[in-house]
């Protein structure tokens, strides 16, 4: 192939610019302040490094015929005779090394020039008084200033020293060079075989494993102890903001507890660890403060949601995007029963039954069966029409159902009080005691909610796991695998599906009821499509079909954003991008269930990382590209 001059480098530079440009447009530099430019350069360097390492893997056997046919045209940097494969002979030390450096340099310069141009355009536009802000929301002096490395005032007054722009270019050029150097260095094989091999041998060694295992099991307990320590008045973590730090550690402690249980040997050891952890977690509502408890309460409400949705999606394989409907039914049922607002419909109904519409009608625990039952009936009613639908169609119809329910809540003012919501929903009591009597001293009101959420999630998880272990669980899974064969094997499809919908809905109803009493006031907006998507996302991120994964997913998706209050604005985009990346990189989730692992393991193991690494270890073997590569290469030829 002809040595394509610099196409590849320039293209990489452009891609890096597109990504950085996006970060600039959403206002990241402004958030980073003074460190914006170095951080962006670092991001660019990382990108270049990844591209250099994985886009041009070592094809090893120099001059492999056919290697170049597969290659991307943009990657041919070397001279024809000298470059092998995808211009990757270029990655060997010697002349190839310089070529890689040239590639990095070119890519960096491209990105730098574009960024500088963009900054110049923004700075001069703001300086000249053009009103960019209503169009590009985040292009304000603070953001542009951070990007260029000057104060916002200088931007507003059009007072940017001109040398700042070449400086920007320099930053990115250095980033490109640095990435190239790192890539070349990684290629130098000595580095690979000695230090890396020694490290991995050590990681595999028995003493290390034993130590790591004990450390893993001890970690959650240490964290819990630290959280208690932080609770002592006068103790602070890292100076300030100890509340957030404490919340973060609570999340990590709970999450690492799940790993600790996995690390323990099955049998007695595992039981003891699990029991101790459960005790530790149960004390948390008593030691955390109102804010931390409210976040943890929300996390565990979503654990219940996730466990319920997991029955429908993970066990029975029915993709339900309207799951929020049952959450809403649970919440509104409890609201009707316990809040002062009473709709004319319900008062009439009560009068008809000869009950005086006194408020609250039922307490939390007496209302619980009602909420569960209502939600279960809702599950069955919504389930019947969609029984014959599969896959994508089911997803869309259930999504439609969720929206219909929300629109009804919004528009049926007489029943649901419309957008004004239902206010003053009462809190759970205990054995006839009103909530206030015990939620004052020892336990904050949110701590009480957290405790109820914890216990309810435990019950829900118990039921879900037991059901999944029974013939019903097998029937669900069989149905997910092959509906027709499952039916021919004797599974009553209608009953089995409706049971999944009903049980899933029951759990969502429980979660909804607790959510209503946590929120005290509920509005139709609390029950948007995003609740469904959050619930779905948390089971996917955690690992479909795995209850432990669901807890982890809820901690990560509902807990972490509260810790990262400052970046709340970027929560959804980050989360959405992660969802896409997760689907590509690890579709089985963080803590996948055993069955899912079977399903996805082939794609998991052929991921670019492993493939590339294997090749590195044995460069003499003619390497095969990861499966996606031929396709990639073809599509990128100019059409």
């Amino acid at each position, binding site marked *: 192939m002809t040595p394509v001059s610099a196409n590849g480098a320039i293209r990489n530079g452009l891609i890096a610019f597109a990504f950085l440009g*996006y970060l600039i447009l959403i206002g990241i530099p402004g958030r980073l302040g003074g460190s914006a430019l170095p951080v962006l350069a670092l991001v660019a360097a990382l990108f270049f490094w990844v591209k250099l390492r994985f886009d041009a893997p070592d094809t090893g056997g120099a001059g492999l015929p056919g290697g170049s046919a597969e290659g991307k045209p943009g990657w041919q940097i070397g001279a024809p005779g000298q470059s092998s494969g995808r211009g990757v002979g270029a990655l060997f030390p010697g002349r190839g090394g310089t070529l890689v450096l040239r590639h990095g340099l070119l890519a960096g310069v491209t990105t730098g020039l574009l960024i500088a141009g963009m900054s110049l355009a923004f700075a001069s536009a703001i300086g000249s008084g053009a009103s960019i802000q209503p169009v590009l929301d985040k292009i304000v002096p603070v953001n542009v200033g951070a990007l260029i490395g000057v104060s916002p005032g200088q931007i507003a007054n059009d007072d940017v020293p001109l040398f700042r722009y070449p400086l920007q270019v320099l930053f990115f050029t250095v980033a490109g060079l640095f990435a190239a150097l790192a890539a070349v260095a990684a290629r130098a094989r000595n580095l690979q075989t000695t230090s890396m091999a020694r490290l991995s041998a050590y990681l595999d060694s028995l003493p290390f494993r034993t130590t790591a295992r004990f450390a893993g099991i001890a970690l959650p307990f240490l964290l819990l102890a630290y959280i208690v320590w932080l609770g002592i008045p006068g103790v602070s973590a890292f100076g300030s903001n100890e509340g957030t730090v404490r919340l973060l550690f609570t999340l990590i402690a709970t999450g690492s507890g799940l790993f600790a249980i996995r690390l323990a040997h099955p049998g007695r050891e595992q039981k003891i660890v699990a029991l101790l952890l459960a005790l530790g977690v149960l004390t948390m509502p008593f030691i955390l403060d109102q804010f931390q408890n409210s976040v943890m309460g929300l996390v565990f409400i979503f654990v219940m949601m996730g466990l319920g949705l997991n029955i429908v999606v993970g066990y029975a394989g029915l993709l339900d995007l309207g799951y929020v409907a049952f959450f809403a039914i649970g919440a509104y049922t409890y609201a009707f029963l316990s809040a002062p607002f009473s709709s004319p419909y319900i008062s009439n109904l009560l009068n008809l039954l000869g009950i005086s519409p006194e408020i609250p009608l039922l307490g939390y625990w007496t209302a619980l069966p009602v909420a569960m039952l209502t939600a279960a009936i809702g599950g069955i009613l919504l389930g019947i029409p969609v029984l*014959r639908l599969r896959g994508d169609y089911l997803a*869309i119809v259930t999504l439609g159902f969720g929206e219909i329910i929300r629109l009804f809540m919004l528009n049926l003012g007489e029943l649901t009080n419309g957008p004004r919501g239902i206010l003053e929903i009462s809190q759970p009591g205990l054995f006839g005691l009103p909530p206030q009597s015990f939620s004052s001293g020892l336990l904050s009101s949110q701590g009480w909610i957290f405790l109820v959420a914890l216990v309810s999630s435990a019950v829900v998880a118990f039921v879900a796991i037991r059901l999944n272990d029974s013939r019903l669980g097998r029937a669900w899974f069989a149905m997910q695998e092959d509906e027709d064969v499952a039916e021919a094997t004797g599974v009553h499809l209608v009953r089995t599906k409706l049971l999944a919908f009903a049980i899933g809905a029951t759990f969502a109803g429980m979660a909804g009821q607790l959510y209503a009493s946590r929120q005290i006031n509920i509005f139709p907006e609390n029950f948007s499509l995003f609740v469904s998507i959050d619930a779905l996302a948390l089971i996917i991120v955690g690992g479909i079909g795995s209850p432990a994964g669901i807890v982890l997913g809820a901690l990560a998706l509902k807990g972490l954003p509260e810790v990262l209050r400052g970046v709340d604005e970027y929560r959804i985009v980050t989360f959405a991008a992660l969802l896409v990346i997760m689907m590509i990189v690890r579709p089985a989730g963080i803590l996948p269930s055993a069955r899912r692992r079977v399903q996805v393991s082939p794609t998991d193991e052929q991921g670019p990382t492993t493939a590339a690494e294997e090749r590195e270890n044995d460069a003499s073997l003619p390497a095969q590209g990861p499966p996606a590569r031929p396709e990639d290469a073809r599509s990128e030829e100019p059409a």
Partner: protein
Amino acid sequence: MAPSRLTAQAAGVNGKTALRFLLRAFGAAILVLVIWRVTTVGLAEGYPASFWISQALNGLVLGGVYALVALGYTLVYGILFMINFAHGEVMMIGGIAGFFALQFSQSRGWLEGPWPVVVVALLLIMLFGMAASVLIGITLERLAYRPLRQAPRLVPLISAIGASLFLQYSVLLIFGVSPHSYRKPALISGGMRMGDVFIPYTGAIIFITSILLMLALYFIIQRTKLGRAMRAVAEDRATASLMGVDVNAVIVITFMLGSALAGAAGVMLGFHNTVVKFNSGFVPGLKAFTAAVLGGIGNIPGAMFGALILGLIEAIGPSALGIPTEYKDVIAFTLLVLILIFRPTGLFGEVLSEKKA
């Protein structure tokens, strides 16, 4: 292939089961209810005929826009068997880009010029919106869908949901929360009067443009080499690639075509609704999907007619049933649910149902 055939016919067996009976009864009850509402409430209101006609025209306009978006769903579904959940967002981005092109044209004074200049400027605005959508559409395919082609079907759908959220909230972050309002140039802001019926120029232009675009698409698919390649890939990807069709290129072009139509729809919807904002693609996207399903997903003429029917129902429905217009979304979603329950292959048949399972 065999499983799908089994399922299709398995549905036939269950014909006499109680469930099917229940569903039929449910459907009949809804039908009776609808007819009862229409005769007792809708018609009893005594709206003049001109009211119904202008509502119907409104519906056709909306239907034309939905049709353009629905075609994108159907094209992609026909080839990849996946629901491009982010397609509504692709449309919204076309609308946003069109807004900026419109601002630019206004700042240059092109829209106050003589009519040929205005027409050219409007065309350019639409082309700009289409270009932006195409860019987003192919990026989406490359980054979010292509790596997942071999994955189980749930995986690309979730990726698409992620992409949809990502696009919405990126637009929110970049362009702000406040809606961007389209200001119509004077030339097209009026309307004409036929008898008692008032037809706004924008409505007429939108309808005609969407019909032209649909005809162009139909021509591309039925009469060109490219269209033949697309149909071949839709029929059987593996065989098509053995016959020398570059499957990747065809998929990219499919996304380009669908996105271009969505972009045009985004701009026209901007003129129609007068505003665009970050989430203004979501509901129309769902509606367009409904339309695609209504006509039988994967079926191109089906998507066009399905969308027109949906537009009509949405425009006439609330008044005919005598319910507030806030419920028009409920009508659309209920229709979607009913169609999928009673005729999952759509009114005109899902062309590619064989390979679905």
